[in-house]
């Protein structure tokens, strides 16, 4: 495997994956996108990802269950929760269960990039934030 950051992105909204995959690729992440939590869990059972980005409110399997699974299977992985149903109680629950960060929808691509950069730093690898810096100037 390369020394790129391995990212798994799970959201049942297809557009999220379609947009974030290139956005994260720009800062040197290798992104696998899933819309179905079952498939994502199956994939994660096989392989460790550095960062897991997951939606919380999904049919069948809840993002919290994904979080619990990752924390147990790959304690080193950083899990970032993204949700449209952000509430204080949900945020605290996620943090307590070991989420690395919690982001409320809607967010900008840069918001996630910053968090992923932070996660990379916590994992001990620096991320080239060049692309994101350029955009900041635009915003």
């Amino acid at each position: 495997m390369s020394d790129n950051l391995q990212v798994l992105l799970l959201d049942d909204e297809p557009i999220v994956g379609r947009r974030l995959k290139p956005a994260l690729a720009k800062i040197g992440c290798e992104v696998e996108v899933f819309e179905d939590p079952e498939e994502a869990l199956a994939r994660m059972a096989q392989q460790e990802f550095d960062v897991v980005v997951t939606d919380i409110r999904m049919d069948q399997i809840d993002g919290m269950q994904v979080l619990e699974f990752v924390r147990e299977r790959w304690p080193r992985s950083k899990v970032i929760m993204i949700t449209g149903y952000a509430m204080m109680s949900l945020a605290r629950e996620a943090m307590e269960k070991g989420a690395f960060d919690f982001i409320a929808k809607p967010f900008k691509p840069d918001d996630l990039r910053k968090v992923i950069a932070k996660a990379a730093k916590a994992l001990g690898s620096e991320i080239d934030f060049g692309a994101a810096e350029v955009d900041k100037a635009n915003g």
Partner: protein
Amino acid sequence: MTSGPGAAREVNLMPLIIVSADDFSQGREIAHRVAGVLGYRYVGRDLLASVAEQHQVSQEELVQALEDPPGFLTRRSRRQRLLAFIEEGCLQQLQDDGVVCYGLAGHLYVRGIAHALKVRIITEVGQWAQAIAESEGVPLERAQKVVERRKEEQKRWSQDAYNLDQSDPSLYDMVLSLDTLEPDKAVEIICDTAGYRKFQAMTYSRKLMQDKALASRVRVELMKSFPDIKVEANDGTVVAYLQSLKKDQRKKQEAVRQLAGGIEGVRHVEVHVIRDYFGQAAQSSR
């Protein structure tokens, strides 16, 4: 400043601790000690000096706004403005995590923030009265009455100023009674709790704090012209709610847009004219 915001954000662990207490001096002591043990920054009444300077008011007046119960002579709109100054100054300080905040009524306006650990320190009438009786040399019975009156006044103040009863435990994450706990133990419990992952700062709750700070900054500016304006902010978008008669609605909306548009961090301004003020208040406090 002891630590820059950038430095604090690198370490993704520290909550805000917002302490309030029945007995001011006891609470202050515990808050100080918590900050000392955890190595957090203490934000307290000292802040009032800079707030007073910034807004050209006296520090005593700010303290009065925080303490005096509503009475016949209370100028409500003046007091609400002073409180808005304090709120703005305080929220500015709370943009960094790893802060212990005390004595600035933070427990009444920092709400719904996941990484704000809110602690109430209560003292039963008996013990508090005894302390007063000893320190001021008054009979115990009189001291008891003083304490009871003070508790009642505090409650009335919070209801009048923030429409909340600060003795309601549901406002807090933790209520510690100094009747059953030694102050040392209280400090220890607070420090332990601050280490829980539950109260860690995160992007979501930090953003809410930024929004709150922006809203309060805009509100302070707008209050000069519109004393009972309410402001919400979301990511640079500011929504102002104001009461208006229909005829000068347009004029007021335009004025608010002009005033708020010039404030740093504001990208877009929306003005909602409301008639049902109470309904609005009920909704925003949910």
